[in-house]
């Protein structure tokens, strides 16, 4: 299973929405996610891939508050706005883990 599919399935489960609604371009803030949802999603990803995603609750809130204004939020310095962004972060962290 590609990483993007796992990411979609974890996000869909946390937000209780059909996985088909999620494409790489789907924005988390447009899905009605609240900051606690983002934190739950990040936890799900960390558990699934055995990685650590450096996202604080305040950043999750900023991300969601940015709404349609083009804000990105961040995990460390990486964008964390769309499903594709999240998959990219996971990809990078998994690759870094393998390289170790």
């Amino acid at each position: 299973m590609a990483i993007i599919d796992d990411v979609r399935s974890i996000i869909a489960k946390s937000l209780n929405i059909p996985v088909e609604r999620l494409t790489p371009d789907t924005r988390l803030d447009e899905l009605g996610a609240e900051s606690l949802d983002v934190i739950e999603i990040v936890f799900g990803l960390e558990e699934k891939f055995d990685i650590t995603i450096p996202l604080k609750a305040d950043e999750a809130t900023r991300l969601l508050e940015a709404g349609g204004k083009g804000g990105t939020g961040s995990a460390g310095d990486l964008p964390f706005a769309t499903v594709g962004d999240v998959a990219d972060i996971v990809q990078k962290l998994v690759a870094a883990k393998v390289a170790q």
Partner: protein
Amino acid sequence: MNRVVVTGIGVVSPIGSTREKFWSGLVEARSGIGPIVNIPTERLNTKIAAEVRDFDASQHFDAKRQGMLDRFSQFAVVAARAAVKDAQLEIGEEIALQAATIVGNGAGGMNTLDDSFYRLYAQNATRAHPLSILRLMANAACSQVSMDLGLKGPTFTIASACSSGTHAIGQAFQMVRSGQAPLALAGGTEACITVGAIKAWEALRVLSTDTCRPFSKTRTGLVLGEGAAMFVLEPRDRAVARGAPIYAELLGFGMTADANDITAIDPDGAARAMRAALIDARVNAEDIAYVNAHGTGTALNDKGETVALRKAFGDSAERLAVSSSKGVLGHSLGAAGALELAATALALHHQTIPPTANYQEPDPDCDLDYVPNTARNAPIEHAMSSSFAFGGLNAVLVLGRA
């Protein structure tokens, strides 16, 4: 209706466990936050907390009694004894039989629970200690205070997370005001700086690894604390008749629920609690000189609380002095409201506003007077102390100068 006054204050805190040390630490903005020393930190990302470092249980309890007391009960009993002593209170038959004992705590005996589960799950111990339940039950601290002082009136624990202490004191205030109890011992206690509890807080991603900087643009989250504060509350007439010290008068109590988000502060719910407390106190918003804020140091709380203060106080918010004690005390959850009521009562007593510690830079979202870093002498006739808990539970007290 009785007028209700605070005649005794007992504290166990990260900046010292006497009323004098506590007050001087607050006024000097001497932060009790530092590297964690009481538990192993190898598995923690968060290596700072506001621990009570000068507390030696063996100085207060013999070995057998100590074995019955989780740390949160030890704190409560020591604070309660200090409050009774501070109030110069002799516990006679009427008080013993009728005084209320109400203690707020968000968790229970977390150290006992954590230790017991570690032994069972990690070390494969066969059995738990027979006193485990008696140490960890949520009402343990309250029951131990009652037993220690021989108080046999209405006695119970209030749990409303970070509002527990304020709810407990507010409830006791109402009972003394109405005459339901002739006197009350009330406050809050918490001791849950354990590996398991910090891990759980880390998972919420709200802990700072730097320090607690309430209302500062540079704030990075909350820092866990621990401690207890207990108070003697009694009718003003009784206090005057027996020549007791009077630190402040309790004037009003307001409580609301947000019925909204489980973590985020709801400015409407918080403002409604502030207004309810003002109405109960029959004090106008413009007559409040000082608010001891909840001020956790998270981006969301401090911004939302500022909005709530503006909603509740209107134009007079501009003239309000607001400070958070959490830069000094950390966030001691169920004890926080009680320790902060001690700060507020002592502010009225000393006519001095304790500052917001660790403040660095103004935030456009937090645009009130937060009394940054330096205490301020000011005439204070009325003050407010606010607590806003996870679960959307808000509790606010209004006090007046004695």
